[in-house]
């Protein structure tokens, strides 16, 4: 455990040092992460105003709150591993990682967290600026904030494990972009990214509650906005734990199979 903590600490330092070298691309990356929720915010505000000040159970000001918080949660749980993994396999970058006596996922988790540590302060400033422009209305509660901490950690873990597992598809196919695209569409609609899930038809909401996507984005957002009851929060955390456990098992199985294939056909 201490050795792992050491490893993470070193990986943070390494990633931090490399990322600082790429300030410009980091900045561009952040603009993208601000623009997407901003576009949804503007669209839904217009919709709400057209509907007499609200759409579904969200007022214009509540939409502002939703998407500003979503932007921050997205920053916490976002990963880029699916874009990167097939490149790694094709370029033979996985082999040096396999020679090391630690599971390669640790380096990825540590890298992800350290890059978030760099971007989060900026995103908070952006959120403050957006709040001053759009005057969001939220009804946060202290207990909900406390519950949001584990919810965010679980959301990060779930999304990371799931996307890391999906990235392993690169072992089997060279056409990972098709898989990635389908996945991102599912996330867009079923996680609450494009709109709060309560605006969707009932059937879709049921599906979204069963599938993992809501639990890595929409759930912590709703929790932070104070839209959930304590019971809802506890159930949500329970579902998150179940999904994380399932994703972990899946990750182990897929990784083992992938590595078997990789080392059979030529590393």
């Amino acid at each position: 455990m201490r050795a792992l903590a050491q490893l993470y600490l070193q990986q943070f330092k390494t990633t931090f040092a490399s990322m600082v070298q790429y300030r410009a691309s980091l900045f561009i990356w952040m603009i993208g992460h601000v623009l997407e929720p901003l576009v949804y915010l503007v669209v839904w505000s217009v919709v709400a105003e057209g509907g007499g000040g609200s759409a579904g159970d969200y007022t214009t000001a509540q939409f502002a709150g939703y998407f500003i918080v979503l932007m921050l949660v997205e920053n916490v749980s976002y990963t880029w591993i699916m874009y990167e993994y097939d490149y790694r396999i094709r370029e033979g970058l996985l082999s040096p990682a396999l020679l090391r006596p630690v599971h390669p996922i640790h380096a990825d988790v540590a890298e992800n967290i350290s890059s978030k540590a760099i971007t989060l302060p900026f995103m908070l400033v952006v959120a403050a600026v957006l709040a001053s422009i759009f005057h969001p209305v939220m009804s946060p509660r202290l207990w909900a904030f406390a519950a949001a901490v584990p919810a965010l950690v679980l959301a990060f873990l779930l999304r990371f494990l799931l996307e890391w597992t999906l990235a392993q598809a690169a072992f089997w196919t060279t056409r990972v972009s098709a898989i990635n695209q389908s996945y991102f569409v599912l996330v867009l609609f079923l996680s609450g990214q494009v709109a709060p899930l309560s605006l969707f038809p009932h059937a879709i909401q049921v599906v979204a509650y069963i599938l993992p996507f809501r639990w890595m984005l929409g759930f912590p957002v709703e929790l932070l906005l104070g839209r959930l009851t304590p019971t809802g929060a506890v159930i949500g955390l329970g579902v998150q734990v179940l999904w994380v456990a399932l994703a972990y098992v899946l990750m182990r199985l897929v990784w083992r199979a992938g590595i078997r294939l990789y080392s059979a056909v030529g590393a």
Partner: protein
Amino acid sequence: MVSPVIHIHELSKTYEVTERESGLMASVRSLVHRTREEVRAVDRISFDLAAGEVVGFLGPNGAGKTTTLKMLSGLLYPTAGEVTVLGYVPSKRLGTFLRQITLVMGQRNQLVWDIPALDSFELNRAIYRIPPADYRRTLDELTELLELGPLLRKPVRNLSLGERMKCEIAAALLHRPQVVFLDEPTIGLDVTMQRRIRDFIAEYNRRFGATVLLTSHYMADVEALCRRVVVIHHGRLLFDGDLSALVQQFTAHKTVVVQLEEGRLDLRKYGEVLSAEDGRYTLRVPKAETARITERLLADLPVIDLLVEDPPIEEVIERVFAQEIE
């Protein structure tokens, strides 16, 4: 008998490759029917390495050297046969095994591109759980042996190829592996840098008693480092033994260099004349007849000096590789 550090028995690796002719029709056909062909990269090879040995692993490109090294370091599963390193089955990639070996591949980088090598070393310290005192001592030793001092604090991307290679090697050895696999460690380096790396490998072996298996296209590396060589070709073991025995086995000729008082003689009746310059003649003669020919040369001609040599090792190896084995 002490059990060997590396044990390979009847080791084979077969790849399945999809074959296709070029052209549009062939592409369409391949949608329906694919011709698969098995390629035997490594074909039932066996050899052992004892602790502390430095062995040269030779063969032309595509002979199966890298495939073998990958099976030894656990990156590839063998198709058949046995392989153990330090008593471990490499493909299980156990932590205790990986902490005792290293594989240095010419172009692969352990080092993070944008930051100083020292930071990557620190990362390896954490990965291999090297105790701080050991780390400092090993780092000092490696810094001294490889003259890394001024390089450690520069971003890796600003280093020259040779400088980077030295840092790569250091990164790969920080955990003091007992077994070292080197795949073309000197490729693309200038002669001075090649020699420095070579000296370093010899010194590392001496100091730590590490077992080293190395591939190289530079015979100077092999001659300087390895008494024993293992030669493979088309995946098969061609030779395993002393470098000098390799020369004996694969050369049917010797080179005779004679210095004569006179420079305008025709020596073709003694053997194949490789060069003739200012009375210095180089002849190639069948090995079995060397004694008889030198005797005749000395009797017939005004010889000042005479030297019998084995052909250069490059030439021997070239001949070994050129041989088609059935």
